[in-house]
């Protein structure tokens, strides 16, 4: 017997909040949310370039026993539900948590409901998107170029910046773009520790959620379309732009 899917209702009612083509502009609060998303993503990408590069380098070069566990920890955010990360961060960054106590002692106050709280959360959340492409790029270089650099009396630091970084440049680009877009796409963690503050923690993904909950489907459509087009274009750039494989081999 063949089971047939129930056919879609032929007269699926057009959404009452259908897009009004004459009025396609985003509201000020939508723009603020978008700008905040990009500012957050940019900050996180910079922080992760500084933090993720040494981790990726170490993971690519080490043959030690620690490579497995550290690699697994770095990859955790790929599989962990955002609610797990959000919950731990909320508790840890709260007034009775270890991070909360530390930030209060340092006179920084509490991190939840602040921009820097989101940055800290996103650094965890996007860590694998920076480290893994970089690690792959570093591994692809192999030992030989660095050995050659060493015979030319380049110090390891020198060799890293003059040999490894230029060779891994495409990896840096991919890693940065993925980190940036993944942070723009963050939602669950922000919802749990953000507190929905305009210009501070209400990023575009949360703004869309709020629009939907408030039944403002028109605004939700517009902002969602912006996010969709942005994400597609960025990924298109990543996939279309590949260094010529014949070159340099």
């Amino acid at each position, binding site marked *: 017997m063949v089971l047939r899917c129930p056919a879609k209702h032929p007269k699926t009612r057009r959404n009452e909040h259908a897009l009004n083509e004459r009025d396609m502009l985003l509201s000020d609060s939508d723009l603020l949310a978008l700008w905040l998303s990009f500012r957050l993503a940019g900050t996180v990408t910079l922080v992760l370039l500084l933090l993720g590069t040494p981790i990726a380098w170490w993971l690519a070069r080490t043959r030690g026993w620690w490579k497995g566990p550290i690699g697994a920890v770095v990859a955790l955010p790929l599989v962990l539900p955002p609610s797990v990360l959000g919950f731990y961060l*909320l*508790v840890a960054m709260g*007034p*009775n948590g270890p991070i909360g106590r530390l930030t209060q002692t340092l006179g920084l106050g509490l991190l939840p*409901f602040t921009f820097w709280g989101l940055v800290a959360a996103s650094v965890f959340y996007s860590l694998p998107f920076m480290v893994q492409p970089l690690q792959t790029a570093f591994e692809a270089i192999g030992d030989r170029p660095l050995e050659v650099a060493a015979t030319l009396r380049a110090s390891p630091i020198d060799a890293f910046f003059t040999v490894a970084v230029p060779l891994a440049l495409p990896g840096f680009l991919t890693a940065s773009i993925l980190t940036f877009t993944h942070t723009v796409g963050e939602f669950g963690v922000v919802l749990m520790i953000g*507190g*929905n503050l305009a210009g501070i923690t209400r990023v575009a993904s949360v703004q869309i959620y709020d629009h939907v909950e408030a039944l403002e489907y028109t605004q939700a459509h517009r902002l969602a379309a912006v996010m969709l087009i942005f994400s597609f274009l960025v990924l298109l750039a990543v996939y279309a732009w590949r260094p010529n494989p014949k070159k340099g081999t």
Partner: protein
Amino acid sequence: MKGIFLVLCCLWLAESAAQAEKVTIAAAADLKFAMDELVSDFKNANPGAQVDVVYGSSGNFFGQIRQGAPYDLFFSADIMYPQQLVTAGLAASEAKPYAYGRIVLWSSNMDASRMTLESLTDPKITRIAIANPQHAPYGKRAQEALQAAGLWDKIQPKLVYGENIAQTAQFAESGNAQVGIIALSLAVNPELASKGGYWLIPEKLHHPLEQAYIITKRAENNALARRFADFMDSKPARTVMIKYGFALPGEASEDKTQ
């Protein structure tokens, strides 16, 4: 691969055959503790009945039901949503009021029972959690009360917004916000009551939080859904609701401010 598919099919068939008597309830987050108790009482009286409850924000459920979400009963924190579903022909009952909600000041690390709304201007209080007034009924009432007290402009910079009233309570419970404006029904729950006191915000500062439920269109022929609705009207169910700080329709509302 085929085997796995067959097993899944069998599981699915077995599952659907077993669920002869089943009801799924969408309940506003302020009902969290009261509804848990009501459902457990109902199950004791109706052995074999399967009752699933989903908690969330009323506005969210409203949107979901309009898109065909599989809920049989919808307990909203604001009568406006069920009424609109009735108008849209998505209900199999009228919008039936079941309770009036109240809002309170609550804190996990300060004695909120000695506070008033004025206390929120204290510079020591830097974070106050309310539910998002854009779509959460309790958040709207919190905003109204702060506006009626003439404090909204002063307090707004300190506000953080919970997605629903349960998350708002959680922001205050974890101490990330020193004070929260939350539902009385959550503040009287033992979990929160053991941690801090509450101050009842005077009723006259905000519109009444008239709460209502409907049986949805899809549950028109669901006998269990009807039985649960009848159960809400029963004496034991009303006792539970009163215990959780709800004023009930048809009963004199007493302002038990301390």
